[in-house]
């Protein structure tokens, strides 16, 4: 540029040592070298120590036959399966309880958070009691409480509570009829997918028409009819291609049907109700962060309280809610590892419990387990950050 040309830098006193660019590069390079050295030192040290102590090392054990059974498996698994398969079973069990826990905790947390701000004295106080009780008791105790409570309230299979649709509730868990699809069931599935596509299209169309003309369309009711009615109609039209395998009491236990174990129920309830108490506070904080003027303005425009909350307050509050909510989700996912205390076969119980003991390869197993939790948490927080940036205030 013109200015620089007119005033060239004096050569005198210039040293590479003081050049911020060179300095920056040197220090970063030094950092990388140190890091690489540290990692390789750790790796060789571990390897040497394990070798010296005659402890097997390496990851070959993942391909060996496991030889033990797991009570709840989402994928097919037998004693002939490999340790890697056992790892997958544990991982899926963790993801199942964490995924459902996140959904349940969000729903309960949202409701309780709103209830705490209710003008109804009783509702507000009940919500306060819920939050203050649950968030002030250690989670492990809550889990043990739920497990003991679930087990001691429920009767043995022979005296089990009979529920509608051939289901039973006992201390072996909730036993439901299992569904067995017959040929032709694909049409029902297809009808359901078609209904989903239709509903999405409908929502777009209704929204655009409303933007253009201001005329509302009963999207919700039409969607419900399309989502439920259409697949049911197709189901009967194709001759009900579904068999129900009803559980029946034989020997000690129910044979047939589909069983939800009490360990799973206790863990899901314990985790989600505990996390919900924190989420409730996050939601309350988010709502209180929105100026009261917003509510008053909405009322002045003739919005009813429910709609005010849904259309005005919550969308704005979400911006405040999402970042701390991400923390709660991450906590819930990591806390699911407490499953080991109540016998739910999650990743920690199956992999860094049984597998680690049967193979004795503590370093490898613990490293894999930590890596997996790290990965799950990073993915969750990446998703939440994406969601956060999507709903962030668009400044135009």
């Amino acid at each position, binding site marked *: 540029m013109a200015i620089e040309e007119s005033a060239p830098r004096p050569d005198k006193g210039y040293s590479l040592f003081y050049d911020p660019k060179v300095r920056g590069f040197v220090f970063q390079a030094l950092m990388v070298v140190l890091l690489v050295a540290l990692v390789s030192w750790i790796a060789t040290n571990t390897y040497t120590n394990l070798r010296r102590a005659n*402890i097997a090392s390496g990851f070959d054990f993942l391909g060996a036959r496991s030889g033990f*059974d797991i009570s709840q498996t989402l994928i097919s698994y037998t004693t002939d399966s490999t340790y890697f398969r056992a790892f997958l079973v544990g991982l899926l069990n963790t993801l199942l309880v964490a995924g459902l826990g996140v959904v349940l905790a969000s729903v309960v947390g949202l409701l309780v958070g709103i209830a705490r701000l209710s003008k109804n004295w009783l509702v507000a106080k009940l919500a306060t009691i819920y939050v203050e009780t649950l968030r002030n008791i250690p989670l492990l105790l809550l889990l043990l409480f739920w497990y003991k409570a679930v*087990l001691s309230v429920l009767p*043995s299979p022979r005296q089990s509570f009979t529920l509608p649709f051939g289901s039973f509730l006992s201390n072996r868990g909730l036993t439901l009829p299992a569904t067995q699809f017959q040929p032709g069931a694909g049409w029902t599935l297809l009808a359901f997918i078609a209904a989903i596509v239709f509903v999405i299209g409908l929502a777009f169309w209704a929204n655009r028409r409303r933007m253009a003309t201001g005329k509302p369309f009963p999207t919700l009711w039409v969607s419900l009819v399309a989502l439920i009615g259409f697949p049911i109609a197709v189901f009967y039209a194709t001759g009900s291609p579904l068999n129900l395998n009803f559980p029946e009491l034989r020997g*000690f236990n129910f044979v047939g049907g589909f069983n939800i174990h009490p360990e799973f129920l206790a863990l899901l309830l314990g985790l989600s109700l505990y996390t919900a108490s924190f989420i409730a506070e996050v939601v309350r904080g988010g709502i209180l962060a929105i100026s009261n003027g917003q509510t008053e303005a909405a009322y002045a425009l003739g919005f009813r309280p429910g709609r005010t909350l849904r259309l005005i307050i919550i969308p704005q509050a979400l911006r405040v809610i999402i970042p701390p909510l991400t923390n709660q989700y991450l906590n819930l996912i990591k806390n699911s590892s*407490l499953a080991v205390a109540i016998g739910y076969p999650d990743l920690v*119980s199956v992999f860094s419990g049984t597998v680690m003991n049967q193979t*004795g390869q503590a370093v490898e197993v613990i490293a894999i387990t930590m890596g997996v939790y790290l990965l799950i948490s990073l993915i969750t927080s990446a998703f939440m950050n994406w969601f956060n940036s999507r709903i962030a205030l668009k400044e135009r």
Partner: protein
Amino acid sequence: MNRALLPSIAAAAFIFVAGSANAATLDDVKAKGFVQCGVNTGLLGFGSPDDQGNWTGFDVDYCRAVAAAIFNDPQKVKFTPLSTAERFTALQSGEIDILSRNTTWTMARDTSLGLSFVGTTYYDGQGFMVRKSLGITSALELTGASICVQTGTTTELNMADFFRVNNMNYNPVVFEKLPEANAAYDSGRCDAYTTDSSGLYATRLVLTNPDEHVVLPEIISKEPLGPVVRQGDTQWFNIGKWVFFALINAEELGVTQANVEEMKSSENQDIRRLLGTDGTFGEGIGLTNDWAANVLKAVGNYGEIFEKNIGSGSKLGIARGLNALWSKGGIQYAPPVR
């Protein structure tokens, strides 16, 4: 969480400690002044704290015997209660000096974990316990049962094999700690409880109504239980091995806690060598020559330890069975001190 902590620390020990010292455990033990012994978190008769908080039991007395052999004081031992999942890592990492926690001797554990079993202090086998009200008399009737079990045990594997071979299905409910597994069985979560049969008798006694439960006759596995030390320290391994052999030999020779002093002047050469009156056998394992006499003064011989903790002198009332001396119909047999 403390459950996950121990393996992590142990793993860290392998990662960060340059050249972890596994030689000369005896020197380390002498330097710190006590033996660090890994025991059960609470298995009546084998390793559990009594109402004053003192550790007692069959496995615990072995630890005291080792302490007596080294320090001539059975109190110079500290106990680390360990779950099944923690026990091997605790020993590998040097957290404990010796593991005496009803642990089954298997080939994999003896060869690929960097550990060595010093002997079989208790010959056991796996069994099942059920409620009497179920009205079954054989483990072969357990089809479809929910079974409570502890994680990381040979029990978990034997059970899988047993049900597979007999073409029966079952539902394992796996717990990390013994008390949790007991509580789940007690509350009716499981139809059956499985572990080594010695453990079944001990567990039955702590259930709400012990009389409502019955141990089934089938023994589905061999479970030789014994103390474990780290591989590569022959001197420490020899101490562990010979303390156990001394207990057996003493029973065979009729040396008891009460008569050990007078037996020192016995005419029997076997007894004189065992108690250190003749020979320098103690020096061979880095101890004083009266090491065995100190052990016997402190805890008594094998038979006394057995009867006091799990045999006729205890609530468990387990018969000697396989654990009787070889000369009395059992298979407990020790090489001579010579």
